[in-house]
């Protein structure tokens, strides 16, 4: 059954096609001349690491972003332009997002028909018709057990997802984009979802399927497209590829030139974790981090990487286990304590947890050590501005001066300000969560060089990254996490994209394995 619709679709013109599509955000090209098409009745898997351009591509298709000049979107062979998500929906393109966009206090039927509810005249809603059609849609998805009058807030993730899919179908979607639909599903629900996808394909709906889980892709997809660093690496029929070739398409091979890792002498243990847990998000993590060492933590989104960082830094204090700093057991219940013990945390989302945008570079850099540069309670402005100028020079922050507001800087320079804030505290342990996410290649390698320099000065570094080349290129040791647990550790010498990538995806896939 899998092969037939695909081969019959071969001859049909593409339902939706992107030609020579690029997208630039504030001077950074995140999508580079990509060509992509999807045929009716086809499951087309879209693969790539975080930051590869997948989200940008689907946001262009769903009308959230307009592509740069020179690109073209065609639906049924006719050029179209989407100026809003509404236009894309009218063209029959619907998206089921990772974070489901439903109204928790409304019923299933209301959610399915929000924005296009059947009317009974005088503008009033036709509730019976709405409930009847919602029922039919859900039955179509084999979801007979889902009550159309249930409040969506009380539903499981899997059921909410079905509501999202029904919502898309209610608008006569001919192309359904599914962004990591199985990321938060249990095994049985994954199996049901795969059945739903197959059923939609049989009805001629085209599906763009984004997932990190290889077994699902091999079980479902007819074709697969790989993006890396915003560029199209290739589109292949699923029969042409295997696990290993997909992983190598995703991560590329140019790691050595990109990451000029400086090997520095590794010193005494600085931070030790012994069976540290936080609820069920971080489970029994034990590790030893030494001075001068960069420990890379790899894992898929939701594998517990960030949660581990938050636990070490005291934002979500450990619920069990022991943390030792320089051999002495310590208690870390708040970021303040962590900071005072010499732990620094450069957060994953600099806009959310790193930067105070309305404040100046000077004020941002000094924020974590105000009490140390104050006499009494008065901030020593001379020291403070020296610190800021120092940071600008040392980190190569491109700014007009210490008095420029942080929000006006580019992403890479904002990240350097956050890094400068923490390095100024003279920490012993530096935790960096996605240190180069969303910044351009030039600033990336500058930050990598800074990391090496800091490690050379004896700092112990934990680097969390979704970019496998970054993890492989920068780390002395690599720890792979999944489901809140440590799956494996690799030495730098034994870590290749294939083995680490496999550890990440296969561990993740062991869930879905049963489903495939």
């Amino acid at each position, binding site marked *: 059954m899998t092969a037939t619709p695909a081969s019959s679709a071969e001859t049909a013109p593409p339902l939706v096609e992107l030609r020579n599509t690029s997208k630039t955000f504030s001077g950074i090209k995140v999508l580079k001349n990509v060509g992509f098409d999807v045929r009716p009745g086809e499951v087309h898997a879209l693969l790539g690491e975080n930051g590869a351009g997948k989200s940008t591509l689907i946001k262009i298709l769903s009308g959230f972003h307009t592509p740069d000049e020179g690109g073209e979107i065609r639906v049924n062979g006719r050029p179209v332009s989407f100026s809003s998500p509404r236009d894309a929906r009218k063209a029959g393109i619907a998206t089921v997002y990772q974070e489901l966009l439903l109204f928790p206090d409304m019923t299933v039927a209301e959610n399915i028909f929000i924005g296009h509810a059947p009317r009974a005249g005088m503008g009033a809603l036709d509730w019976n018709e709405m409930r009847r059609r919602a029922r039919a849609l859900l039955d179509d998805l084999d979801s007979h057990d889902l009550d159309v009058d249930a409040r969506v807030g009380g539903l499981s993730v899997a059921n909410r997802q079905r509501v999202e899919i029904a919502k898309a179908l209610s608008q006569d979607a001919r192309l359904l984009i599914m962004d990591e639909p199985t990321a938060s599903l249990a095994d049985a629900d994954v199996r049901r979802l795969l059945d739903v996808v197959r059923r939609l394909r049989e009805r001629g709906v085209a599906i763009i399927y984004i997932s990190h889980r290889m077994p699902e892709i091999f079980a479902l997809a007819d074709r697969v497209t790989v993006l890396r660093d915003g560029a199209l690496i290739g589109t292949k029929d699923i029969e042409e590829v295997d696990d290993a070739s997909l992983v190598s398409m995703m991560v590329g091979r140019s790691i050595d030139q990109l990451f000029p890792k400086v090997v520095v002498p590794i010193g005494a243990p600085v931070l030790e974790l012994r069976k540290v847990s936080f609820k069920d998000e971080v489970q029994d993590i034990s590790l030893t981090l030494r001075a001068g060492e960069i420990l890379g933590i790899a894992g898929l989104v939701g594998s517990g990487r960030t949660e581990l960082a938050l636990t070490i830094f005291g934002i979500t204090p450990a619920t069990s286990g022991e943390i030792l700093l320089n051999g002495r057991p310590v208690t870390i219940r708040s970021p303040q304590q962590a900071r005072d013990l010499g732990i620094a945390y450069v957060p994953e989302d600099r806009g959310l947890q790193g930067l105070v945008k*309305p404040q100046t570079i000077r004020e941002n850099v000094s924020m974590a050590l105000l009490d140390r540069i104050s006499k009494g309670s008065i901030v020593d402005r001379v020291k403070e501005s020296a610190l800021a100028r120092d940071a600008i020079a040392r980190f190569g922050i491109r700014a007009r001066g210490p008095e420029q507001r942080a929000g006006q800087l580019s992403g890479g320079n904002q990240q350097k300000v956050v890094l400068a804030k923490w390095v100024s505290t003279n920490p012993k342990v530096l935790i960096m969560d996605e240190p180069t996410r969303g910044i351009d290649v030039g600033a990336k390698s500058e930050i990598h060089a800074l990391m090496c320099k800091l490690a050379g000065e004896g700092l112990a570094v934990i680097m969390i990254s979704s970019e496998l080349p970054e993890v492989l290129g920068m780390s002395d040791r690599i720890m792979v996490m999944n489901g809140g647990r440590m799956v494996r550790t690799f030495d730098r010498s034994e870590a290749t994209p294939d083995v680490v990538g496999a550890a990440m995806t296969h561990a993740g896939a062991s869930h879905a394995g049963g489903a495939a």
Partner: protein
Amino acid sequence: MSFETATVRRSASTGFAARTFATYGQEFIILACIVVLFVAVGLIAPRFISPTNLTTIFVGNAYIAVAAIGMSMVIISGHIDVSVGSLIGVLATISGTLAVSGYPVWFAWLAPVIVGMVVTSFIGVLVAYVRIPSIVVTLGMLSILKGGLISVTGGAWITNLPPDYLIAQFRLFGIPSPVWFMIFLTAVAAMFMRYTAFGRSIYAIGGNGEAARVAGIPVERTTVTIFAIHGLFAGIAAVLFATQLQVIQSTVPPNLELTVITASVVGGVSILGGTGTVVGSTLAAILFAAIGSSLIFLNVSAYWLRAVQGLLILATVLADMARRHRIG
């Protein structure tokens, strides 16, 4: 200050005016408005700028500027207090009642300040630790204070205030004490906000609370302290309000909270938190007082004052949005 000039010199010489204006733009604009208003209305109605009228303007409104100092701190930290008008009404009544009941005048001055701090600290605890939005907490507090005050006093007048209690009628070098209070407290608060680590953390919490927490700033404790300081200013404002006349009406001055919040916002304090100065809010309070008085001299209905205040709020918030957009 010397440091400030040093960095200024480092950047291009054209940058000074631009950057000073970028930092204090709102304050300059309001100052200019005040000057233009006094000159223009003074030309039409010379009695507007007579010492008597100036005294009336300042003595009658300085307490608003004082209350706006604390309010500015609260708003900069990302919160709001809509109960401040009722609080000032209650505190003024407490103060006056103590004064006529034979307590020493220093006690009648001090008690409202302490009670004010207790009330706002309680608000701060609910906001910071129980995590109820400040608008909700203070709306509740507004009704409690207002209702409680009317129920207890019936809105009666407090008379026979002892003369030495009437601190707002004292003069120093010929200038009424409320003006001195306003200038002194604004200056102290401005320095506090600008030069102390605590002042800095108020801006950090309002600008990005999560980042402040991650940077090790004790967000909850700081928030409660900010509310307590706000109560301190509300208490002083209440004493200035209670002692400006020979009598006190034990009710809530109408729309006082709105006037105070308007002063902060029009003074350049971002309603979204993170930016603004207390100098701005004091200047804005003076501007409103002057507008109110000029309406009388120009024979315009005093009801227009409210409309003007509303327009100014909308204009400033729009300007703030535009500025935020630029900062990103």
